């Protein structure tokens, strides 16, 4: 094996939870001869593999499976190339440069403050200028760029007063230095940049972390299908390389990678992610099937009719694009504050300048005071107030299993006063769960477990999960054999036991499997989707928080009714994606609506909602469209998230109040000319520490 033949691939492995997992994966994977090296990235829940180039995707995923991990291939191996991560790295570099410059200039400034004079002071000022000017040119770029963009569109944002303040302060300080003046504000200007860059960087770290988590959850990315070649051989083809006319072999338990028509075999498909319908659909040859549906029963051969942009998803994507425009118009609280703040700050500085000119202080002295006003009022604490609170909140939520995509999502979640919730997969678990397991005899339970464990069929996996939760011991069976489309057969002593598809169709469309011993039926095990365990409590908690709740479901009225009754919610049923979008738009006129859903059919509504959440089991479209993703089977995280969002907003408002209070004290001082560089430095760092300290109170707010 030569090193040249190695290729690199990335996998998302959501189940990496502890040091043991790291060791198990890194040491276990390399035992596979096709894998040369494996490196776990715990933060992003990823594994980076170097493997031989002819290693097929299913084999690699199989290597993870044998270690007990579920892995999903991630599209391109060069995950580092994405612009957002590069952006936050750039910010971190700017923070480092500004931090270095700030410390050195401060060192020089302290000597000036403590009484250096004459040539020494001039030397220190020149040194400060030499450090500060390149730093401002480098680390100030994010602010200058954004301020320039805003000004060109005749708008103003937080960055405009910042840029003007920093530029004016450094220009004036340079003049002071050249004319042997006593006051240079280089320390203030660089410190301002440093604090503000910290805020920016925190904001982008928060987005990166959530994005990493979400990438790990996207399971359909880079999937593909086994395609039947002309010579009867099968090979694995990535979803992006599929072409119309190819024949895919879809095993039971696999999701379809493209739209198409069934050419051979018949099975039942789980459409719940696509339409919200909970009952599986029977498909026979010639039936049209859609990408994203789950094959439940037996392997089928599907002739691909459309791929990528041509699939049924394209319509939903178009609707979502339109729906998302409303959300992009949302203005974040810091920018709303800046709209009032920036003109006020500029007016004050101008007033100070004009005022002192009128009194006859001379333009130099007047300008010095105007710059002091600008530096003091620069929204240093404001720039930190919001991101500091939001990153602490997002960190706490992440620990509780909720991924928040960005700060604006938290702000919008805090404003929500109505919730519309999808049924299948959101209020319910969206997967078959075994019913009435306790009624089975102990030996039947242990036999069922032994057989179910041998199969990867979705129903077998549900049965295994259910039985393991009951602590059932596995029966001693041997020569296990699985027949696709029929079931599992094994020897138990001298008896032949089978677990499989019911011999004659069960009444209704419920899913079921039957256990027989020597051909005689012993037990029929039924499966049904069921409510999430704490659905009632979560809905009640939402109501007590003053949020109206209702159901929007694509499922039939008969299937929705029991759920609606149990949760005492009003429901609208049989809705298409357009219907959901329209219902949401009607409510949005008077309310701020939170949409919670998981399916493809919820995508447009999720994109249109004032805020939106999706469970971790949601379709990729649902996860991409929502602001926030909660993991696990429980609904209570929704309540926790909304409460946390409201608390965060309260803290942000307190921080604003603190920042304004500080200005009320400091601005008159600056006006009167008492603010020397020393006072400015103390005031600035003091208010920033206060604001960050206040944000820290959000830690452990969930428990």
């Amino acid at each position, binding site marked *: 094996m030569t090193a040249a033949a190695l290729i690199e691939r990335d996998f998302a492995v959501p189940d990496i939870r502890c*040091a043991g997992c790291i060791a198990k994966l890194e040491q276990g994977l390399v035992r596979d001869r096709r894998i040369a090296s494996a490196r776990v*990235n715990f*933060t992003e829940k990823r594994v980076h593999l170097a493997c031989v180039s002819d290693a097929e995707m299913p084999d690699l995923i199989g290597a993870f499976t044998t270690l007990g991990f579920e892995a999903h291939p991630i599209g391109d191996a060069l995950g580092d190339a994405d612009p957002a991560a590069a952006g936050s790295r750039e910010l971190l570099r700017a923070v480092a440069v500004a931090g270095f410059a700030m410390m050195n200039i401060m060192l020089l400034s302290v000597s000036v403050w403590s009484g250096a004079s004459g040539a*020494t002071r001039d030397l220190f000022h020149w040194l400060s200028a030499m450090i500060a000017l390149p730093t401002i040119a480098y680390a100030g770029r994010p602010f200058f760029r954004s301020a320039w963009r805003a000004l060109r569109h005749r708008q103003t944002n937080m960055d405009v007063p910042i840029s003007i303040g920093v530029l004016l302060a450094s220009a004036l300080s340079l003049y002071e230095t050249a004319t042997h003046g006593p006051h240079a504000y280089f320390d203030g200007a660089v410190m301002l940049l440093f604090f503000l860059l910290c805020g920016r960087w925190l904001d982008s770290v928060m987005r990166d972390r959530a994005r990493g988590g979400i990438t790990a959850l996207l399971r359909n990315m880079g999937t593909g299908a086994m395609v039947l070649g002309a010579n009867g051989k099968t090979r694995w083809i990535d979803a992006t390389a599929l072409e119309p006319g190819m024949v895919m072999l879809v095993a039971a338990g696999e999701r379809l990678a493209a739209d198409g028509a069934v050419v051979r075999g018949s099975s039942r498909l789980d459409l719940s992610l696509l339409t919200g319908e909970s009952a599986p659909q029977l498909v026979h040859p010639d039936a049209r099937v859609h990408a994203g549906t789950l094959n439940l029963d037996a392997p089928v051969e599907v002739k691909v009719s459309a791929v990528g942009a041509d699939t049924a998803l394209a319509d939903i994507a178009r609707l979502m694009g339109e729906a998302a425009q409303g959300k992009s118009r949302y203005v974040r609280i810091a920018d709303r504050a800046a709209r009032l703040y920036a003109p006020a700050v500029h007016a004050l500085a101008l007033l100070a300048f004009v005022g002192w000119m009128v009194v006859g202080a001379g333009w130099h002295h007047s300008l010095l005071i105007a710059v002091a006003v600008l530096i003091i009022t620069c929204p240093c604490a404001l720039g930190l107030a919001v991101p500091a609170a939001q990153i602490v909140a997002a960190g706490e939520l992440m620990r509780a299993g909720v991924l928040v995509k960005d700060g604006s999502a938290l702000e919008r979640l805090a404003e929500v006063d109505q919730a519309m919730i999808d049924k299948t997969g959101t209020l319910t678990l969206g997967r078959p769960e075994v019913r009435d397991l306790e009624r089975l005899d102990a030996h039947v339970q242990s036999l069922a477990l032994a057989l179910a464990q041998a199969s990867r069929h979705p129903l077998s996996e549900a049965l295994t999960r259910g039985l393991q939760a009951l602590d059932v011991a596995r029966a001693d069976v041997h020569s296990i054999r699985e027949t696709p489309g029929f079931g599992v057969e094994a020897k138990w002593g001298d008896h032949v036991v089978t677990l499989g598809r019911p011999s004659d169709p069960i009444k209704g469309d419920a899913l079921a499997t039957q256990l027989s011993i020597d051909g005689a039926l012993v037990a029929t095990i039924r499966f049904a989707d069921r409510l999430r365990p704490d659905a009632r409590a979560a809905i009640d908690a939402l109501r007590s928080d003053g949020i109206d709740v209702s159901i929007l479901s694509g499922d039939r009225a008969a299937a929705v009714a029991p759920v609606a009754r149990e949760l005492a919610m009003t429901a609208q049923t049989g809705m298409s994606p357009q219907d959901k979008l329209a219902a949401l738009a009607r409510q949005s006129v008077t309310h701020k609506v939170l949409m919670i859903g998981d399916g493809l059919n919820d995508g447009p509504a999720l994109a249109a909602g004032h805020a939106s959440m999706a469970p971790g089991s949601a379709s990729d479209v649902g996860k991409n469209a929502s602001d926030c993703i909660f993991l696990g089977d429980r609904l209570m995280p929704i309540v926790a998230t909304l409460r946390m969002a409201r608390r965060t907003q309260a803290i942000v408002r307190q921080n604003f109040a603190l920042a304004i209070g500080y200005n009320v004290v400091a601005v008159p001082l600056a006006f009167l000319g008492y603010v020397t560089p020393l006072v400015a430095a103390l005031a600035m760092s003091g208010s920033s520490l206060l604001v960050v300290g206040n944000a820290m109170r959000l830690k452990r707010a969930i428990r």
Partner: protein
Amino acid sequence: MNGLAVLIPIALGLGLLGLAAFFWSLRRGQFDDLDGAALRIFVEDEEETAP
């Protein structure tokens, strides 16, 4: 004053050294997996069994 001529370059040089070290570690990917780095101390090295 003479002391300053020696001390200031030293102070700046050390600061720049720290900055360069930080950039180096950033580029080498040492900040890519902070949570993982904290856990790796618990990972026991596997015994070399292969020849």
